[in-house]
């Protein structure tokens, strides 16, 4: 808080010492919090308070020792009664032989070891829960429980109070299919690895034999053994590469697997021929290593793709699986989602999530649209209001008519969009494929020329060596290795990047559209201007202490808790009166105070405050206008420097916000004159980003899903910490550190990664060019060829590991 204020250059008055001491840390997440009303711990929000008490109450205090990072907690405090329904049990739970049940749940906010510990301790806290296992990558938790002792709703309530809202897990079937694929990939990986290690040992013996005497029988033994290991093992392990190569041939599309498959097959066949002929080189060790390295890099890449695809399915978990339909005669029936048709009349009770997009036809309530908007405040709805699947009805039952169901709902569209994103191939990968296509032609032509030029057996021998030596292993490894290293390092630094193409798009600078709230600013109102006597500050703080209003929370930061306020009367939407130390204070909007006293002594200050886009508050002591306060959302510390770094990388930052234009202009001015637009609706933002894309790359940085559409429409959407779950899914990049500085670091890292990829491609092509030329000329000793092949892969590996990308991320 103090540092944030120090950034705001225009308001020296606010740098008064008293302010610094009053910031209290939230007992749960450590963010600034209002001082507690009693002697208990202080909290920044109700979510943190509920979770903190739940954790203490269950005796899980160790959580605070084992967690990796502190974040504000979110809880819905729902009852989860629907989980106890028989219909739910039939679809989502499985009976076990001993009479207990298992259920898969999707938990929100699963982030770190602390969460895992907290949830897996559930059996200790709840009678009747036998086991809880967390899969953090999928956000999935498998619970074994005894329904006769603990209803599922109680378990869900417990997990919710711990800060992990619960949803039924929908992706179970697809998980099974994927697990099968993953296991097969691991089998191949294991076989290739074992073959590689053993063949290498035999190869060492053979190479040693080149320089010492080795009996023909021994040499034969090692060569035959190598062949017997290599052919089945590589044949099995490299199957996916062969399959893609055949597919590429059939569809006449260029693919990097084609030259790889040619190299591997020719190597195996020619090596076997040499074993049988007992002359020439065998290539089995190099081929096994190549296959192993390829499979490792592909396994890692597919895992990061999986994560993005799994994220899409989690969204489905957030919408209910059944709904209450109202028949023409007014009777209510529970039906599964699949039975709902457009135009059906549905009832949604308080506490339930809306199953479809629709229009309210009866009743009024408040909804929690955090899933879609990231806005934690309830939104009031009435007849004719549009509601969206996945948002939660909070206060009263309502009836609606379905206007969109399943995949055509807003959530459905989002899921589809995220799935498409995760399947898209990065342009650099397509470039590698194109290069590989040309590569095949060049190498095959060169091989034919070699046979013709040398003629006879020597020609064939040289041509075969050429095909094997130029097998573009390094080319195929260049991109996945660099990307994997970058994604891994970024992940450790709290930046989640969804695949190579996101990285690549982030590396092409253009416009960067920032949503002011939450990215540039702290996101909480604070006092940035104070004009008036210092002793009044403590009085104001004392009077405001009892109020939950955001402005009041900001004003309590003015002074130490000390004086006691009496006769405090809050006038809704205007201000507050009270007595402290024998003085009568009136605090509130200038227009309200002006009704009963003379504000002219403060007129200039108030005008200046308003002119800067801050919210003015006037304070009168004993009926005399005494102090003026300006309230605003202050800049994040270091925001100015981060913007300068982004500009240096070639980005052109600008602000696009839903806030009041004057407030946006004020922030823009503090950032050194950014282009800024305020008062933008979500549709405005979407239209703006879409239009801007026509002119070049646009990165969009946002946190709510008033931004989600714009995030998805931009070339590269960046969600920042505290973002709605949906914003995180819609974005290409999720930055966990809530600062514009982290975004600048990420952009720099992406550019460094692309530089590494380009370097890798050059290195691998250079190796093949040199190796190929020497082979065609007949100048290369087979041993040198065998050393060069792994060497090219190793240099690409070294180059990737040495990359500067994401090294300096905090």
């Amino acid at each position, binding site marked *: 808080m103090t540092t944030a204020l120090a950034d705001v250059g225009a308001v020296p008055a606010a740098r008064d010492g008293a302010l610094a001491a009053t910031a209290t840390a939230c007992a749960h997440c450590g963010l600034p919090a209002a001082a507690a009303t009693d002697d208990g711990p202080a909290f920044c929000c109700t979510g943190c308070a509920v979770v903190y008490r739940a954790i203490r109450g269950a005796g899980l205090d160790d959580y605070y020792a*084992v967690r990796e990072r502190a974040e504000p907690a979110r809880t819905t405090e729902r009852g989860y009664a629907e989980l106890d329904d028989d219909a739910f049990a039939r679809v989502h739970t499985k009976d076990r032989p001993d009479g207990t049940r298992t259920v898969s749940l999707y938990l929100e906010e699963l982030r*770190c070891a602390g969460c895992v510990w907290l949830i897996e301790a559930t*059996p200790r806290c709840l009678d009747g829960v036998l086991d809880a296992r*967390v899969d953090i990558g*999928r956000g999935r938790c498998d619970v074994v429980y005894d329904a006769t002792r603990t209803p599922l709703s109680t378990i869900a309530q417990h997990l919710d109070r711990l800060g992990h809202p619960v949803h039924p897990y929908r992706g179970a079937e697809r998980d099974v299919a994927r697990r099968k694929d993953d*296991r097969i990939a691991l089998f191949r990986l294991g076989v290739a690895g*074992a073959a590689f*290690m053993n063949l290498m040992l035999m190869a060492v013996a053979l190479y040693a034999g080149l320089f010492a005497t080795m*009996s023909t029988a021994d040499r034969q033994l090692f060569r035959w*053994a190598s062949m017997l290991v290599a052919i089945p093992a590589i044949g099995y392990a490299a199957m996916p590469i062969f399959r893609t190569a055949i597919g590429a041939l059939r569809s006449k599309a260029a693919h990097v697997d084609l030259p790889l498959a040619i190299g591997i097959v020719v190597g195996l066949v020619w090596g076997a021929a040499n074993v049988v002929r007992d002359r020439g080189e065998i290539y089995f060790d190099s081929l096994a290593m190549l296959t192993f390295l390829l499979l490792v890099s592909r396994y890692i890449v597919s895992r990061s793709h999986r994560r993005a695809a799994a994220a899409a399915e989690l969204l489905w978990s957030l919408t209910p699986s059944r709904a209450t339909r109202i028949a023409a005669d007014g009777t209510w029936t529970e039906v599964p989602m699949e039975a709902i048709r457009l135009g059906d009349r549905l009832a949604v009770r308080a506490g339930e999530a809306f199953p479809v997009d629709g229009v309210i036809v009866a009743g009024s309530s408040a909804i929690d649209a955090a899933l879609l908007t990231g806005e934690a405040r309830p939104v009031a709805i009435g007849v004719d209001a549009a509601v969206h699947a996945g948002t939660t009805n909070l206060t009263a039952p309502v009836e609606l008519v379905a206007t969109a169901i399943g995949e055509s709902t807003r959530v459905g569209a989002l899921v589809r969009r995220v799935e498409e994103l995760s399947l898209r191939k990065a342009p650099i990968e397509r470039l590698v494929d194109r290069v590989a296509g040309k590569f095949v032609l060049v190498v095959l032509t060169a091989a034919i020329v070699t046979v013709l030029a040398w003629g006879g057996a020597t020609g064939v021998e040289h041509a075969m060596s050429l095909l094997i030596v130029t097998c573009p292993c390094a080319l195929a490894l260049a991109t996945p290795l660099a990307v994997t290293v970058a994604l891994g390092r970024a992940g450790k630094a709290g930046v989640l990047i969804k695949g190579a193409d996101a990285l690549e798009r982030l590396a092409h600078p253009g416009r960067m559209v920032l949503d002011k709230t939450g990215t540039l600013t702290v996101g909480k109102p604070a006092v940035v201007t104070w004009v008036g006597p210092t002793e009044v500050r403590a009085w104001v703080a004392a009077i405001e202490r009892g109020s939950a209003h955001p402005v009041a929370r900001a004003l309590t930061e003015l002074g130490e808790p000390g004086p006691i306020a009496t006769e405090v009367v809050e006038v809704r939407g205007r201000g507050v009166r009270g007595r402290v130390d024998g003085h009568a204070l009136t605090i509130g909007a200038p227009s309200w105070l002006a009704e009963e006293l003379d504000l002219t002594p403060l007129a200039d200050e108030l005008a200046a405050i308003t002119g800067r886009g801050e919210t003015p508050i006037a304070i009168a002591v004993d009926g005399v206008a005494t102090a003026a306060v300006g309230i605003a959302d202050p800049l994040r510390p270091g925001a100015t420097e981060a913007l300068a770094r982004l500009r240096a990388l070639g980005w052109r930052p600008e602000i696009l916000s839903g806030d009041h234009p004057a407030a946006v202009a004020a922030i823009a001015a503090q950032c050194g004159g950014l282009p800024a637009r305020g008062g933008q609706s979500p549709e405005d933002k979407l239209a703006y980003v879409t239009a801007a894309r026509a002119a070049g790359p646009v990165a969009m940085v946002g946190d709510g899903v008033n931004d989600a559409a714009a995030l998805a429409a931009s070339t590269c959407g960046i969600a920042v910490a505290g973002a709605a779950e949906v914003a995180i899914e819609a974005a290409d990049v999720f930055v966990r550190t809530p600062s514009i500085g982290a975004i600048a670091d990420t952009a720099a890292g992406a550019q460094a990664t692309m530089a590494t990829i380009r370097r890798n491609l050059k290195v691998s092509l250079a190796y093949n060019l040199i190796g190929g030329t020497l082979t065609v000329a007949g100048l290369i000793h087979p041993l040198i060829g065998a050393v060069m092949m792994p060497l090219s892969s190793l240099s690409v590996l070294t180059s990737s590991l040495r990359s500067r990308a994401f090294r300096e991320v905090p």
Partner: protein
Amino acid sequence: MTTMYVIMILALVGAAGMVAAFFWVVRSGQLDDLDTPPRRMLLDEARPRREPRA
């Protein structure tokens, strides 16, 4: 000389055994989730004892 043949066969049988063990490990599901266990491992000491309940 024949020692070499014996050793070679032993080595290959050993390697095949390792591969078989790896297959068993994968099949048993130990490698299905590679994200959670490394974190869980850190918490062994903090893991609460499961107390018998009445």
